[in-house]
Each structure stands twice: as structure tokens, then as C-alpha cells.
């Protein structure tokens, strides 16, 4: 498949920091893939996602999404992408419906399309009857599902997910993963970060392992497992490549 995202030599060093959060990252993400961006804490995953979403600017380098260069075209890129942040990026005192109408409007979804889309997504993710309940009354799993819907209301070509299943129960996780697979089958390219290696091995079609701001390896989960002698899982590959040393960063 042709690459829908082309990352060209992106480096990022935050002001006052002694080290580079991203160091000359080059990556091509195939269209229609579920691309796992894996790495320990502080590896640079969230920084890379933030750059691709137009939230922060790279120190050096650029990227393209669907042939549109990041230079001066961030708004056009943002129209094509969906973002599901790690936090519950929702207003707690608004209902699920009110949150989704607001975020949908920001992504240029028309007034006429919003209500049927929201109802449909809430139904698919088992939240239809909680549509008019305030978010602060929701469980962690319910918030995660609304958080996901807020990122896909405008039918993005590329969906960025930053640890979308962290802190949720098994049922919610299964629902989220199943729905993401369905979205992918319908044509959405998914870029996903996680610390859950088993989930990533099962979910992703392609994976890149990143550490200390540098992409170590990339390939399908099977290719990565086969590349490390005696490795039987993605977790073993991950440990073999990134080591067991703690990665606490401040």
C-alpha cells in the first residue's frame, strides 16, 4: 500500500531540555494500516503524535499526510485527521451528546449530519441510553468510548490514538478494539501508541519501535518477532530492543 503519512527527518528538542525528544525520525505509514508506535516512557511517541496532529512544531524536518505537506497546511491536514488523546478530553459537566455536538462542530460536521452520526456511534459503542447523561457520571470505560467517538465524528482518513485503552475494563477494551478494527476495514488508517504489547501484537498490522527519540525497527508484528532469535512475542522483542532499564524521565 502507498504511504499515507511520510515523516521526513523530524527532530524535536524542547526549550531548556538537554536531549532531543525526537532525533531525525524517518517513517512511512501505509494507507489502510493499523500502525503501532511502541516504546518505553519518554521514548518520543506522544511528541511525534503531537507534531503529526499540528499541536507542536518540530525543531527540524517536516511531514506529509495524504500528499499534503505540513509546511503552511496544518489546517488542511487537521481536517483529515482524528485525534483521541490519552486523557479523557471531554467536559465533565456536559452530557455525552453536548460534548460530541461541540467537538463535531469544530471538525466542520454539518448540523444536519451531527445528530444521526452521534446517535449511530453511541449505539455502536453501547452508550445510546447514556447519551444525555453528564460525563462526570460515566465510568472510565464509558469515558474512553465517548473520547473515541469525539475523534471519529468527522470520518477522518487518519486516526491518531494515544493509548486509547489505558485504564479500562476488559469489556470496554474489547468493544473499543473491535470498533477500531471495523473503522480500519472501512478505510481509516490508524496510528496508535500503547504500552500493552499483547494488544498491539493482536491489533496492529505494522509496528515501529521507538526509543530515545529514534526509530529502532519497523515491520509487521511477525517480521519483528522473527527478527529476534528465540522471541515468541512482541513483548520479548520490545525488551530485547529497549532493555530492562527503567525509563523514568522528567
Amino acid at each position, binding site marked *: 500500500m502507498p504511504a499515507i503519512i511520510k515523516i521526513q527527518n523530524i527532530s524535536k528538542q*524542547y*526549550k531548556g531540555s538537554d536531549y532531543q525528544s525526537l532525533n531525525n525520525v524517518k517513517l512511512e505509514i501505509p494507507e489502510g494500516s493499523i500502525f503501532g508506535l511502541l516504546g518505553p516512557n519518554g521514548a518520543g511517541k506522544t511528541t511525534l503524535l503531537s507534531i503529526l*496532529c*499540528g*499541536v*507542536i*512544531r518540530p525543531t527540524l524536518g517536516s511531514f506529509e499526510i495524504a500528499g499534503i505537506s505540513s509546511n503552511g497546511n496544518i*489546517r*488542511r491536514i*487537521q*481536517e483529515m*485527521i482524528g*485525534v483521541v*488523546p*490519552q*486523557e*479523557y*478530553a*471531554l*467536559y*465533565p*459537566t*456536559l452530557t455525552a451528546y*453536548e460534548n460530541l*455536538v*461541540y*467537538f463535531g*462542530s*469544530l*471538525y*466542520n460536521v*454539518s*448540523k444536519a449530519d451531527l445528530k444521526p452520526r452521534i446517535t449511530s456511534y453511541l449505539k455502536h459503542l453501547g452508550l445510546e441510553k447514556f447519551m444525555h447523561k453528564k460525563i462526570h457520571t460515566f465510568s472510565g470505560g464509558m469515558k474512553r468510548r465517548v473520547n473515541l467517538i*469525539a*475523534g471519529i465524528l468527522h470520518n477522518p482518513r487518519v486516526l491518531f490514538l494515544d493509548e486509547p485503552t489505558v485504564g479500562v475494563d476488559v469489556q470496554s477494551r474489547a468493544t473499543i478494539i473491535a470498533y477500531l478494527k471495523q473503522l480500519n476495514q472501512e478505510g481509516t488508517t490508524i496510528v496508535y501508541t500503547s504500552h500493552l504489547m499483547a494488544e498491539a501484537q493482536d491489533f496492529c498490522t505494522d509496528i515501529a519501535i521507538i526509543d530515545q527519540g529514534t526509530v529502532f525497527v519497523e515491520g509487521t508484528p511477525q517480521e519483528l518477532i522473527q527478527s529476534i532469535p528465540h522471541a515468541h512475542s512482541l513483548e520479548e522483542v520490545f525488551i530485547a530492543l529497549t532493555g530492562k532499564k527503567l525509563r523514568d524521565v522528567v
Partner: protein
Amino acid sequence: MWFKLGQSILKELRLLFRDIGGLITLFVMPIILVVVVTSIQDSTYQSISASKIPILWLDHDQDSISFRVRAELEKSQSFELVTELNNKALTETAAKDAVFSGRYQMAIVLPDNLTSDLNIKVRQNVDAILEEMGMNTASYEPVTLERKEVRMYFDPATQTAFKNGIKSNIDKMIAQLESDAIYKTFETQLGGSGSTSFNEPFISFKEVVPQTHPDEVLPNSVQHNVPAWTLFAIFFIMVPLSINIVKEKSQGTYLRLISSPTSNAVLYTGKIITYLIICLLQFYAILLVSKLFFPLLNLPELNLSGNKVLLMSLLTLTAGLAAIGLGILLGIVCNTQEQSAPFGATFVVILAAVGGVWIPVFAMSDVMQVASKASPMNWALNGYYDIMLRNGSVVSIIPEMGLLTLFFAAIITFALLYDKKKRSV
């Protein structure tokens, strides 16, 4: 774009009206503030017998001067003279202790022989003058007299303005009595009957308030206080607005907002319009309470004759813009509510102080007067006073409205540039 903007405004209004604590801060507290401050200030200016200030009065003179000072003080209706403590005759030590312990605001001690010594001193001086003029009228042998001291003790917590006011009143009374004694002595020494009254001052003062129409209401505490404290409440909107922005950052919604294909202009215009609506609602609520509720508290009614409401609404819009600009800047600069809330609250108090809400600008030091001219609260206050007290038209408030709008434009530009810079590092 209009749908986005409409949804942004709707979202902000929902967030505000579902926060009971925030609503109380925005609407109830300013009304309480205006009512309380106006009531206090009004009673300060009025002579109400129920609020007489007790003063310890120790009279060692017991003669005509002390009797007249006492009579004048009692006539003023502002003071109640206390001559006993715990059913015992007052002594200077007891008076001093009672004042320093804060039980009384002040004590006045008149020295003994004040009247007789003053009379002797005046007579000696008059004799000396007449002798110089060749008229030998000396009626007794000159004696050396010590200067007389009227001692005043003040509670250390007493405010300087109050202290100075009392001191100047007593001083004026004594000076009047001294000049009276001089006149009388001259008259007696020159062979007059001594019965001519010199008490009536030749020069008097009359306050003339400029009025363009004879039916205008004269300035009163309500006309002064309602604009000043309404402005204070409007600028306080900085606090909830900055908290709103900081919360978006901590909740993660900010990330979703800035990663959406919506410009900052639309996002912040939603906030600006919403908080402007709140400013106007605050303003009308305070006006309504001032108009309807103040007369029930025996306060003067707020005069809103002519097009005052319309002009004040226009000015409130621009003052609201200035306050909102500061709130947005604060929200962008601060990372936590612990930073934004106390800073915002303190900053409003500083702006109010510098702006002349508490102390008139003309009474400030030169440096503070210059600082005051740079304060948006001062511009807005001057505009309100133009409308409420100087019967100004829209032309007279255009400079203030212009300054406030420019201030908003400068602050919001700086805030958005700062935000952009923050994200590019």
C-alpha cells in the same frame, strides 16, 4: 463558521450555568459587594444619631472654653462624650489605657486653667499692642505662662484620615475661641461694652455642583459607589475565565481544540462573546438591585435618567472586553488553577486600587497618579463618572471606550502570540 461559533458560545454558557459556585461568584457576590460597600460609605457621610462615636472626655479646665468645645462636639451629632469609666470619674491614665486597648477610638484631655490662662495671655498680648500704639491700658502685672496643650489619645488602629479630621475640627474650634477672646479683650480694653458678637464668620463656603439641568439629582454615595464596584465585579471575571482556560489544559480538551481545524480566533471569540454576555448580565443585575433595593435600605436611589443606561451599557461592553483580554492572557500563561485564581484575584484588587476605586486618584502620590492613568479600570471609572456624575454624552466617553478597546486588542494579540510561541518551543 457561525455554527462553530454558536456551539462554542453554547458550550461556554452551559459550563458556566452548571457551576453553582461559579454563578454565585459571578452574580451574587458582586451584588452583595455593591450593597455592602454603598451602605457603609453612605453611613460614613451621613450624620446618624444611632452611629455616634464615643469619645473619652476629660475636662480639667471646667470653664468657658471647655464648655464651648464640649457644646460644639455634642452639637455635631457625631460624637458621644464619655466622662466616666466603670462608674468612676475618668482619669488621664484610665483614658489612655482604654484608648490604647482599643475600647475607645480616642480621648481628649483639656488642661486645667485653659480658659483663665488663655484670657490672661490674650490680655497681655492686647496690652502690649495697645502700649506700642501709645495707649497705656495695662491692668495687671505681666506673668509668665506655659503653653497649654490639649492632649488627644488615639487608638493605634484608628485610620489616619479619621484622626486628621478630628484633629483639624478641634484645632478649628480652639482657634475660633482664641480669636473670639482677642476681639473681646480689645473691645473691653478700648472701652466697649464687650457684648458685641464676633462669632459669626465673615467668610463662608458654599458647595456648588455643576448642573446643566435644574432637575438633575445631586451626586451621592450611590452615584459614586455603584459604578466603581460594578467595575470591580466586571474585572473579577478574569478569575473564572482564566480558570476555564486552565481547566481545558488540565482536562485534555485543550489538546482536542488545538488539534481541530478551528482557528484560535473562533475558539476565543466564543469565550469572549459568552463572558461579555455575563458582564452585561452582571451589570444589569447590579443596576436593578441598586434601583429597586437601595431605597428599601434608606440609601439614595440610583439616578438612571436620560440615556445613562444605554451609555453605561456601551462602556460596560468595552470594560468587559478589557477584563476578558486579561482573563484570556492569564489563562494562557498559567498552568494550574492554583496559579491563576489567586493571581487573578490579587491583580483585580491592585487594578482597583491603582484605578481609583478606593482612594481618589488626585489623593495619590505622583508616581501612583501616573500609574493610574495606565490602568484600564481608571479609564472605565472615569467613563462611568462622566455618565453618572457629569451628565456626559456618548462623545465624552469615546476616549475611554477607545482606550479600553485598544487595550483589549493589544492584550489578546499578545496572549495569542504567546500561546503560539509556547507551542513552538
